[in-house]
Each structure stands twice: as structure tokens, then as C-alpha cells.
């Protein structure tokens, strides 16, 4: 009895909704009703807040309180104080090194995943995917176990007699620790776009080039890189921009060595100087935007050169 009732209710809803769908499906209203909510979420939750962040970054901060008016003092402070200059340079340097390491490790891995296929390909995909799904704090903890003074790596090196307790390399609480940790975090972001594009490159091209006398290096620089460029550039872009803005890994593995996101968080949580934290955040957004814009230009110019 109840079942029949629910069926008729469903029938009514079905008719009503289908009528609405039929009426608006091919109209402008239908089109914008679909995309509207998502667009609104992005606009209201990303663009508006960024504007407010920007406006905060111009607010004077005096005697422990935010004042009315506008000033460039926070930007001047960020760019002229040695401490913040160094931090900015260090943050960018780390992001560049991480991007290079991940390309050097990630390209061969992606290539092997696609060309070897089979169980090896599966193993590579699983090995790349697994860390991606694990909490950043847990992954940093793994690196803490590996890298600390008496950790896995240094213990093993001492066991092998390669180093002594006195001259064991310091791998944690410095830039090295941050670079190793971030390279691990970002590697999947480099590998997957390259895997996706590598699937579309016919293997015959490489064989043809090799039969015509090209060596591996030539095949790599003249065939693989130009054809895989969309994937490579996506990987490089994401790796660089996300490394630049990472907080968890540098905060846990960097010790006293700080990067911009760590300074932003510290400024925000331990002082009430929101304007300065906002200015630093805007600098981060600015660098990211510059990279994205410069990148699109480079890509457009390269399209003409590749021409395969």
C-alpha cells in the first residue's frame, strides 16, 4: 500500500521534473542554471575573498591594531627587510629545485609506466598514487623517521662505515629536509600529466628515429620532449606553484628554516598583524600569477616551433 503511494508520488515528481527539464533543456536558462551554482561558488569563495585580502594588505597596522586608511608599508617591509627578502628568495629557490628534481625523477618514471606497461606499469601507478592519498603530516612523519640524526638513512650510513656520528649529514631541519619532503609530495603531480600525454605518443616514432640513427638522447630531446610538452608543462606548472605555497611539509621538516607560507601562518596566529600576513599572501598569489602568465606566453610561442 505504502509502496504504491510512493510510486505515485514518484510518478508525479517524475512528470513535473521532466516537464521542467523538457521546457528549459535547450534554453539559455537551462544552460546557466547548470553552470551558475558552481560559478557562483568559485566567484564568491575565491574572487571576493581575494579582493578583501588585497584590501587588508593596504591597511595600516599600528600599536597592535588595524587602522583605517591605506599604505604600502607592508609590501615595502616584505621586500626591503633582509629577513623577509631571504625568506622570499629561499621559498622560490626551494620551489625551483623541487621542480627540477621532480622532472628528473618523474619523466623516466612516467615513460617507464607507459612503455613497459604490464605489472611494472601498474606498480609505478600504484607507487605514485599511494602517497598522494596519505595525509601530509603522516608523510612528513615518514621523512622524519628516515632523515633525523639517528634515523634510517644516517644509521645505515654509519653501519656501513661511510660516515661517523661526527660527520653524518644533517638532512632534517634545514633546506635539504624541506626539498626532500616537498619533492616527495609533488612527484605525483609531475608524473600523472606526463603519463596521460605519453599514452598519446606512438611508440613507432621513437623506433623510426632510432632506426634512422638517432641515439637515446636525440630521441628524448627531439621527439619525446616536444610531443610530451603539454603534459610536461602542466606538471612543471603545478609542481612549482603548489611547492611555493606549501605549508605542512616545510613547517614540520624545516625546523628554524622558514618559507613564506610558514611566515604567513606565524604572523597571523601569533600576532594580530593581519595586514602584513595579507600582503605576504598577495605576494605569493602574485608570483603564482606571474608564472602562469609567463608560462602561457612561452607555451604559445613554442607551439609554432614544435610543429609535428
Amino acid at each position: 500500500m505504502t509502496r504504491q503511494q510512493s510510486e505515485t508520488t514518484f510518478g508525479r515528481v517524475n512528470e513535473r521534473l521532466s516537464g521542467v527539464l523538457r521546457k528549459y533543456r535547450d534554453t539559455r536558462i537551462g544552460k546557466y542554471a547548470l553552470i551558475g551554482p558552481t560559478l557562483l561558488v568559485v566567484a564568491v569563495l575565491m574572487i571576493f575573498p581575494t579582493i578583501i585580502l588585497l584590501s587588508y594588505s593596504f591597511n595600516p597596522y599600528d600599536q597592535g591594531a588595524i587602522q583605517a586608511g591605506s599604505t604600502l608599508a607592508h609590501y615595502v617591509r616584505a621586500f626591503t627587510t633582509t629577513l623577509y627578502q631571504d625568506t622570499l628568495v629561499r621559498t622560490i629557490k626551494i620551489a625551483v629545485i623541487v621542480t627540477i628534481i621532480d622532472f628528473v625523477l618523474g619523466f623516466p618514471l612516467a615513460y617507464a609506466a607507459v612503455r613497459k606497461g604490464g605489472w611494472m606499469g601498474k606498480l609505478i601507478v600504484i607507487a605514485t598514487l599511494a602517497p598522494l592519498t596519505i595525509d601530509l603530516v603522516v608523510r612528513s612523519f615518514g621523512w622524519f623517521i628516515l632523515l633525523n640524526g639517528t634515523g634510517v638513512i644516517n644509521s645505515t650510513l654509519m653501519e656501513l662505515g661511510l660516515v661517523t656520528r661526527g660527520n653524518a649529514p644533517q638532512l632534517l631541519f634545514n633546506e635539504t629536509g624541506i626539498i626532500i619532503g616537498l619533492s616527495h609530495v609533488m612527484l605525483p603531480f609531475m608524473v600523472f600529466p606526463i603519463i596521460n600525454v605519453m599514452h598519446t605518443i606512438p611508440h613507432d616514432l621513437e623506433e623510426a628515429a632510432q632506426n634512422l640513427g638517432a641515439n637515446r638522447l636525440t630521441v628524448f630531446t627531439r621527439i619525446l620532449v616536444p610531443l610530451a610538452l603539454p603534459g610536461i608543462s602542466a606538471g612543471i606548472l603545478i609542481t612549482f606553484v603548489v611547492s611555493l605555497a606549501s605549508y605542512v611539509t616545510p613547517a614540520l621538516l624545516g625546523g628554524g628554516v622558514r618559507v613564506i607560507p610558514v611566515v604567513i601562518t606565524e604572523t597571523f596566529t601569533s600576532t594580530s598583524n593581519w595586514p602584513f600576513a595579507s600582503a605576504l599572501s598577495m605576494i605569493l598569489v602574485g608570483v603564482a600569477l606571474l608564472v602562469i602568465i609567463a608560462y602561457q606566453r612561452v607555451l604559445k610561442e613554442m607551439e609554432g616551433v614544435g610543429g609535428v
Partner: protein
Amino acid sequence: MATSDDSTRSIRFDQLVSRAGSIGYRALVWATIVFLLSPLAVVVIISFQESAYATWPPQAFTLEHYTTLPEKLGFLGVEEALFVSVELAVATGIVSTVLGALAAFAIVRYDFKYQTTLETILISPLIYPWIVVGLSLLLFINRLGDILGIAIELNFWTLLVGHVMFTLPYPIRTIGASLQNYDDSLEEAAQNLGATELESYLRVTVPLIQPGLMSGFVFAFILSFNQYIVSLFLSGPETTTMPLVLFSLFYNTAPATLAAIATLLMAGVLTVIFVMEYLFGISDFM
């Protein structure tokens, strides 16, 4: 005579270089796989060794860190945080997937005047710095409260708003990809055979794009579940998430205890992924 000798020697040298290159290449690939998995593996190993510290090499193995865990969990605040995190990740996954599905449907099926710009805007949270998402949303909520003259409390809902925002691009991409893979004439066929519009979407379209929907959901779920920095800014005093608790335990608890908690978490997340893969084949759209 001398020339032919030279050429054979150079061929042999070439072969040697090529052999060395291929060995070096293989070593690099294996080293990278070890690099990817070793931080996860050592956490598991440390959780089973006897000492409370992360001593290496392990002297003896024990289950003690697991058997004593139940009494520690409540004290460390793990239980409550885990509950909040799962709830938040499920809610984020559902909202993000629904919004993402609608947007993906619009992008794939309709032509917009500024198609590329539109797609760029929708995908942009992907590269927008998470720390800026957190900080700017907090300032936005604050300003909104000022304008409306009320104090907006930071709680589960503010967290949800932030998490939906940064996870949105993932379902859009996975669902967009799966929509592109199938022929929309199937819907028409269903309708010609007497199905209503609603029925044709629910019974034909949704099942066909299910892998895309589910992988979008899993992506959003995992990103939300593991999110630290956005939650740091948007969580209130009453709502703490798992990554926040883990972060605070990092240097403040016995490494072996943290390792046991981390191992259980990894097992949980990997189980979710394997179940979803088995049920829905989500890996096609990862």
C-alpha cells in the same frame, strides 16, 4: 684496415654506452619507486617495533602500540577529530560532486561564448594557493559578519565552505572526462522508447558516468580528509579535524604511538580506495 678497426671499436663503445644507459635508467626508475614508498613503509615498520622511539634498526617487534591505543585515543583527541574529519570529507565529497557534475554537464553539452575562460575559472582553484584560500576565506567571513552585524562562528559549516571551494575542480575534471566518453544519443534513444527526461538521466546518464562521479567523489573526499592549512584557518575551537590533531601530535607524542595511528589511517584510506576501485573502477579517471 685501421679505419675498420676504429669503426668496430666505436660500435662496441656505443653498445657499452647504450648498455650503461639502460642499466642507469632502470636503476633510476627503481630508486624513484623506493623514494615514493619508503616514507610510508617506515611508518608502518616503526609502529610494530618495540621501542617507543623511532629507533633504527628495530630491535624487536610487538603489537603493544596498537593494543594500548584505545585508551590513548580519547585522551589525544583523536576519536572526535576523526569523526569530524570523516563527516566533513563525506559532506565535501557530496556537495563538490553534485556541483561539479552540473558544471561538467554544462561545459561538455553546451557551447559558451567564452568557453576557455569559463573552464579556466572553474579549474583555477587547482593552482590557487591553499594557504590563501584559508586566510582569505577567514577574512571574508569576518568582513561578512561585520557587514551583517553578527559574529559568524567558525564551525563545521565554515570548514565545509572552504573544503568545497578547493576540491571543486577535481569532480569537474573526472566527470567531464567521463561525459565526453559517452554518446548522448543513448539518452535520446531512451526518450524515444518512452522514458521521461528525468528517467533517461537517472537510468541512462548517471549509471554511464558513474566511474567519473565516484572518482570525483573519492578525490574530493581524500583531499578534504587530508587538508591541513585550509582547516587551520577555518576551524573553530569546537571542531578539530584529524590533520590538525596529527600535526599537533607530531613533536609532542611518542613516535611509535603516532606511527600506529598513522598506520591505521593509511590502512583506512587505502581500503576506501580499493573498495571504490573494485565497485566502480574509479582508476580510469584518476
